[in-house]
């Protein structure tokens, strides 16, 4: 394959082509779903191919992608990518450009502890069926599912600057959910929440303690049917890691994607309140808030030695001591902003265009345990397990509902509340952060399902966080 890609690059080298790159990926995917204790879906695709060719001509990118890797298809894609760039340049005001990078060569082969594609099917199904049986409908539990998604992706990248990379990674997404119902009311609980994916194989089910939490989610779903809603107008809230990962994702991650500043994602994903003039001066959060993008950490789904336009993996501070100091960029946008590219250009599959994407976007840990943080909270709520999320076009106004809230009184959890909902304005919210737990509570929380771009893509990415506390947050939404 390496030679095949080099041959394509050789064909793309011509005076009219300023820059070009080629990606090829092969993806295995397996999806297993048990519903109400029964196997509802077992589907598989093996070694699904994809190729994407991108060329920069006359200051405009053209792209062509396909699942067909035949020689005839490749010739057609080269021609189409060039035609697309040439036609695109006819409707253009400012030609696109960026500085050349030195060539980089990289090879990374990830090996999970338990390869989900190589392990015995019986062992895999037995485990999942056992889980499904443990949460199947009974009494007030009226619906349940156990879902597992396994992915292996091998990817090759090469560009006309001479860079080349070859990587293989395994990703797993495990999830279980129960719905309780009584007298027209329904409530649900999941484990371990919607940011449950990881750079791992089947071992992720064991590490996330699925078997140990089946009784907990059934009991909590049933208890929620009779739980009150929050009666406070404002309250201090401690947000658990799984949900804080999504709060970070929506109100910092997407907001600091620089393609949004220039309107490249307006029609679907939206804009951002962040402007280039804010860099270095804007107080995004409190002094204890440090947020960085780190594509060099192989524990997260966002790891890469080289991004999808040839920039080596980097760790970049986005927010330092509460101040916005950088953004997630492409080579072109970094050049326009006078920044170094942050290595955030990623495509879901080789036949997708690369977009500015979160990789491993993390909040640096603070100090202390979750237990200590709860103990130091006089009155508030500990919220986790995302139920509803929504944020505006500019990533400024958000509203989240979690599946459950744990009421804290005098430093102790005393009861639960249903559908706890809080809302706020992004900078005000992050400036209200007065405590972040320490390294011992810090972990990656990851997703397979970050939607962005047109044509649509879903990205696998991670957030490293520890639970954190936010003061005086609006928790009253009139329904």
């Amino acid at each position, binding site marked *: 394959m390496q030679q095949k890609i080099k041959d394509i690059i050789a064909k793309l080298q011509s005076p009219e082509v300023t820059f070009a790159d080629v990606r090829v990926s092969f993806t295995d995917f397996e999806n297993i779903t048990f519903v109400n204790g029964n*196997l*509802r879906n*077992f*589907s*598989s*695709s*093996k070694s699904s*191919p994809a190729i994407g060719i991108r060329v920069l001509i006359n200051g*405009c*990118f053209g*792209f*062509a*992608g*396909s*699942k*067909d890797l035949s020689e005839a298809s490749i010739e057609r894609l080269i021609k189409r*990518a060039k035609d*697309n760039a040439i*036609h*695109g340049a006819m*409707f253009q*005001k*400012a030609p696109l450009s960026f500085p050349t990078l030195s060539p980089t060569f990289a090879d990374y082969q990830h090996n999970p502890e338990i390869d989900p594609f190589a392990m015995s*099917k019986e062992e895999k*199904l037995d485990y999942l*069926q056992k889980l499904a049986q443990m949460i199947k409908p009974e009494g007030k539990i*009226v*619906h349940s599912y156990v879902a597992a998604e396994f992915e292996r992706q091998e990817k090759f990248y090469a560009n006309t600057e001479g860079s080349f990379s070859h990587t293989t990674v395994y990703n797993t997404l495990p999830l279980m959910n129960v719905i309780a119902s009584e007298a027209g009311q*329904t409530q649900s609980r999941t484990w371990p929440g919607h940011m449950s994916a990881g750079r791992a194989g089947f071992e992720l089910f064991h590490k996330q303690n699925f078997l140990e939490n089946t009784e907990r989610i059934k009991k909590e779903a049933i208890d929620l049917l009779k739980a009150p809603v929050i009666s406070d107008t404002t309250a201090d809230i401690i947000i658990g890691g799984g949900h804080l990962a999504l709060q970070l994702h929506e109100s910092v991650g997407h907001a600091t994607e620089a393609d949004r500043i*220039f*309107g*490249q994602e*307006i*029609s*679907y994903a*939206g*804009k951002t*309140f962040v402007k280039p003039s804010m860099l270095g001066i804007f107080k995004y959060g409190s002094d204890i808030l440090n947020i960085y993008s780190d594509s060099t950490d192989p524990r997260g789904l966002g790891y890469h030695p080289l991004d999808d336009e040839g920039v080596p993996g980097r760790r970049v501070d986005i927010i330092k001591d509460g101040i916005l100091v950088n953004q997630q960029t492409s080579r072109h946008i970094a050049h326009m902003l006078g920044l170094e590219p942050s290595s955030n250009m990623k495509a879901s599959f080789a*036949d997708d265009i690369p977009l500015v994407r979160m990789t491993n976007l993390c909040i640096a840990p603070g100090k202390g345990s979750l237990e200590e943080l709860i103990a130091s909270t006089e009155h508030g709520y500990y919220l986790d397990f995302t*139920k*509803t999320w*929504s944020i*505006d*076009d*500019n990533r*400024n*106004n958000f509203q989240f*509902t979690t599946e459950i809230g744990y009421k804290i009184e005098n430093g102790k959890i005393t009861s639960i509340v249903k*559908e706890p*909902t809080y*809302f706020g*304005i992004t900078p005000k919210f992050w400036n209200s952060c007065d405590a972040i737990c320490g390294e011992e509570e810090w972990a990656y929380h990851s997703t397979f399902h970050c939607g*962005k*771009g*047109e*044509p*649509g893509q879903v990205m696998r990415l991670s957030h490293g966080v520890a639970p954190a506390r936010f003061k005086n947050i609006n928790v009253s*939404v*009139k*329904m």
Partner: protein
Amino acid sequence: MHENLLYLKAALEKHPELKFVINQEDWQTDFLRFYQSQTNYNISKDNCNVGCSLYKDKKQFSFGIDSPDPQKIDNALAEALNIIDSLPDDPDFVDVEDDQRLAPQRQLSNNIEAISLERKTDILSSLAKSAAEHDFELYGTFICNYYKSRLINSNGLDKSSKSSPIYLEVKAVHNKSQITVLETFGGEDFKYFEIESFRAALMAKILNASNPVVDVEPGEYEVILAPRCLAEFAQYLCYGMSASALDQHSSFFEDKLNTKVFPEFITITDDPQDPRMIGRDYGYGGHIYKELKLIENGVFKAFMCDQYYHHKLGLPKNGNSASCVKIAPGNATLSQMISSVKKGLYISSLHYMNFINPRQTSLTGLTRDGTFLIEDGKITAVVNNLRFTERISRIFENVTELENKAATIPFSDNYESFHVSSAQAPHAKVTGFNITSSTKTI
């Protein structure tokens, strides 16, 4: 063209103990992304995929093959046959689809070929010139797709269909204030696109956007919902009309079949045959996709149900999935509706809606692409984007007036997969719409 599908069919027919559904999808897109009144990317993509679901008694296994060939098919089938006996049963599975009816053939152009890149660029350049006179620039997408599919199953179904959606989304954004307005065109026949009407509609919105920007307090407002908003609320409402939602005890419509749920002037159908819409010939599994009354004169009439849930829940099957939602128009003109509002809002478009409790139809979301203040029957200001927290059932209960004509609205669904669909809806006047906070931004 379908030699790989027929190769797979022949291989499966050697196993009479199996039931199967196989389908081939061939898909192409020609996708122009633009920003700041210039090209961002021209993208071409294509794919050929063969999918197969095998059933042995009550055991089921599925596989998909991109860019198939006989060797890949042999390998995937061998693995499937090797695994299927070891799988646990799904006791609710009974049979694959047996609806033999064929949809009438539609005359369709391949719009990728019919609308050249030069023509797209000419249209966008012309619109950009008009917008620039008001210091607005254009952002958006101009998309043409071509899609062909053929489905064969062990009950003798052999059904082919094709579609070629066009989607033009133009957002005009003011260079200084960032005020944004939206105009779209969608369908499968470009003869319905008239650039001068499109330009006139866009320019009217740009003129409204020249009003001052204000903020409003949370509270209940009388609102005029643009057709796009009403259609999107209806699409979310339709979640509860699916048999799968009923099965999960998450449906608002549980125990409400043939019950009056909305005012009698509310009629919602799922209709794939309107020539202005993006058509759909067959539903999931191959059942013919025909017009289905969902809400008729305010009365809930039907759950959307496929073969699987037909057997499991005993509901009539219909193959519908709310891909072609139409809301019947009413009697008022838009100007009459706006002039009857003392103080309220005109909402152009919605953003990032998500259910809080689907059974109660409660959700939150935001306004986008032009929210306007109406005072004494006139649009007087642009309003910052607003958050609402509502029950969709309550929104439809509170509709007091519908416009006397419906517009066709395309939707580009980019979450998880790229897909273009359409809906039809009139403007609606709604009382007591619950605004819960302001975004403080445009």
